[in-house]
């Protein structure tokens, strides 16, 4: 675990380390980098306007860190796209991007299509439902990529371990992370336990990495990214930044159960190629939950199949657009 401790010491950051945005932009320009911010949305009218206003004002107009702010929308039925457009974001309907490959429902689909649609050398993904949004949610993730060439993928976390009167406060992710992901990583890939919140929806990644990894379109996209990048580039490709507090919608336990199921399937599907022996054809794709009706209990079945989009680099359209 010496490697892990060294990684935590060197590759874990706090957003306050990157307060000097002027310097960051000088460094970005010196390297000739372009940076895109991607906000995947589905009915986020309540929060999207505030996110765009803050990012555009602070990280485009005041400090030109971002070269584009794009909303990739899954077909919102509220005013998400209208509000985003009114406040100056580039708005795309997911279905309109690479239409010849069809339309699949899921956040991973939007993230995958962003790799084709956006132009940045770095793409920063930020969820659109953050109530306490602040520019640090973008620059805190982008900065480690600008300042550290070996780092390819920077993940957000929101609960910094702090010394307090009783010793050290345990720090962790959400319920699915602590109950599912961390035990799995501890069993099979102990080095990855250094990621404090592997499922957080905010991360910044270099295009060279994004174009080479597949994208599950559903719950498993973050887990698959971590496993694929770990396999190909190793632990040193990861960075993580403490962004302090994040206020967002809380999910019900039943929804988290479905999420855990999808993630588990993604994990197992990849494990075989990483030395863990699992026969996916023998595993069920049905997730069973229960709901109560008066005195009776009803079993509800959900089929959760983790469909995957292939690495973008395998698409001729992408290779043509980016000259790969």
């Amino acid at each position, binding site marked *: 675990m010496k490697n892990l401790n060294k990684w935590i010491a060197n590759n874990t950051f706090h957003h306050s380390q990157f307060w000097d945005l002027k310097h960051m932009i000088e460094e970005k320009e010196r390297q000739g980098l372009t940076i895109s911010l991607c906000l995947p949305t589905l009915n986020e009218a*309540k929060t999207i306007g*505030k996110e765009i*206003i803050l990012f555009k004002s*602070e990280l485009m107009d005041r400090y030109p860190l971002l070269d584009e702010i794009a909303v990739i929308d899954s077909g919102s039925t509220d*005013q998400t796209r209208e509000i985003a457009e009114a406040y100056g974001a580039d708005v795309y309907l997911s279905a309109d991007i690479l239409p010849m490959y069809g339309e699949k429902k899921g956040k991973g689909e939007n993230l995958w299509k962003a790799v084709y649609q956006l132009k940045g050398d770095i793409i920063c993904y930020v969820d659109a439902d953050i109530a306490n949004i602040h520019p640090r949610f973008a620059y805190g993730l982008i900065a480690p990529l600008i300042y550290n060439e070996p780092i390819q993928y920077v993940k957000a976390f929101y609960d910094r371990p702090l010394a307090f009167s009783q010793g050290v406060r345990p720090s962790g992710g959400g319920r699915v992370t602590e109950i599912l992901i961390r035990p799995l990583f501890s069993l099979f890939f102990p080095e990855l336990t250094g990621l404090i919140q592997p499922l957080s929806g905010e991360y910044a990644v270099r295009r060279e990495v994004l174009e080479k990894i597949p994208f599950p379109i559903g719950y498993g996209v973050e887990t698959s990214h971590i496993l694929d990048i770990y396999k190909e580039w190793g632990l040193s490709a990861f960075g993580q930044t403490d962004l302090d507090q994040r206020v967002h919608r809380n999910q019900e336990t039943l929804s988290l159960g479905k999420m855990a199921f999808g993630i588990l399937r993604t994990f197992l599907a990849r494990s075989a190629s990483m030395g863990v022996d699992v026969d996916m054809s023998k595993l069920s794709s049905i997730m069973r939950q229960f709901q109560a009706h008066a005195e009776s209990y009803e079993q509800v079945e959900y089929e959760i199949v983790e469909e995957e989009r292939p690495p973008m680099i395998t698409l001729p359209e992408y290779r043509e657009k980016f000259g790969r």
Partner: protein
Amino acid sequence: MNRTYKNVDEIIRNLPAIREVCVSLRETLLANLVMLGEIPSPTFSEKARVDFLLQRFSECGLSNTSTDECGNGVGLLPGKNRKRNILLYAHADTVFSERRDHTVSVHADKMCGPGIADNSLGLAVLATLPTLLEKLGVEMDSGLVLMGGTRSLGRGDLAGIRFFLDNNKLPLTSGICVEGVQLGRLSYASAGMLRGEITCRVPEEYDWIRRGTTGAILILNEVINGILGIALPRKPQTSIVLGSVEAGAGFNIIPTEGRLCFEVRSESAETVQRIAGELEDIVEDVISQTGAEVLLDVVARRDPAGLPIGHPLVKQTREIMSSLGLRPHITPSISELSALISNGLPAVTLGITHGDWLHEMRESVQIESMFTGIAQLVAVLLAMDGGFCEESE
């Protein structure tokens, strides 16, 4: 647009272009409003909000920014003439405790959050103004003193602005108080005011049989009955606002403490003085009748002051507002304006936009009308700077 204006008519003719530039800075203004609005800033605890304001001033290139002993945040945008400075003031405190959720929400046409109208928007306008003036290409003759003032509301009693005016060394020629709402507001006079609270305590062993059913609430009721009996003249205009009553904790617990907060407002200092005397008499009377401990505590007091309606500043401001389609709503102020005018500084208070649910958690401000409000502010500023708002010697 880099120019000097020969008269107010020229400024008015240029108002549509000024408004357009305000619209082009929409994201900057709204981002400032979100970030300022999400920093809790109750009276006496404004430091974080003032620090952020000063950081914004520095980012805009203001080299002279500072806080004073009272916590006021001040930034100076120098003009060509060092002997002339215009004070632009917005109070930095709000009525909301830091324990309340200060999240601001942005909708297509409005923004919501506690204190967003009173007075996060006023501060956000100050934070945006240096960028706006730069974009307008305005080179002012006067310096601009941009001030986020502390300890304004309630028990703060304008301590921030008073401290600044008592200790300021810059020669000030005039001032504008910026309030988030309501657009169309024009204050050029301040009412006389006395703000206080009456607290009462009854002992646990109080003889309940003698006075009937309840404790502190009944005592406060006696006080309120006395206040309702005070004769208020129509001229000079006078009113008493009973702002809040606190007492009791449920259905069956006899309250032993109670508090009544009130404010007396009048165009006449003598009337305020007379009512203050009558309030003292009422308190003494209730003490003698009930034997309870009743205290009158005056937390703020100020004398009426104002500019005459024919003052060039008032006249030009009305003209600018009318040209923007705003019907000036003349309302006497009881806030910072009185401190400015009492110090001999010609000043007005202006509102920036329309808003609703003032001092509630759902407080909101309209976005589109903000740009008209800011254009109005810039025009009045340019009129002051051109010397078109000064009385002839």
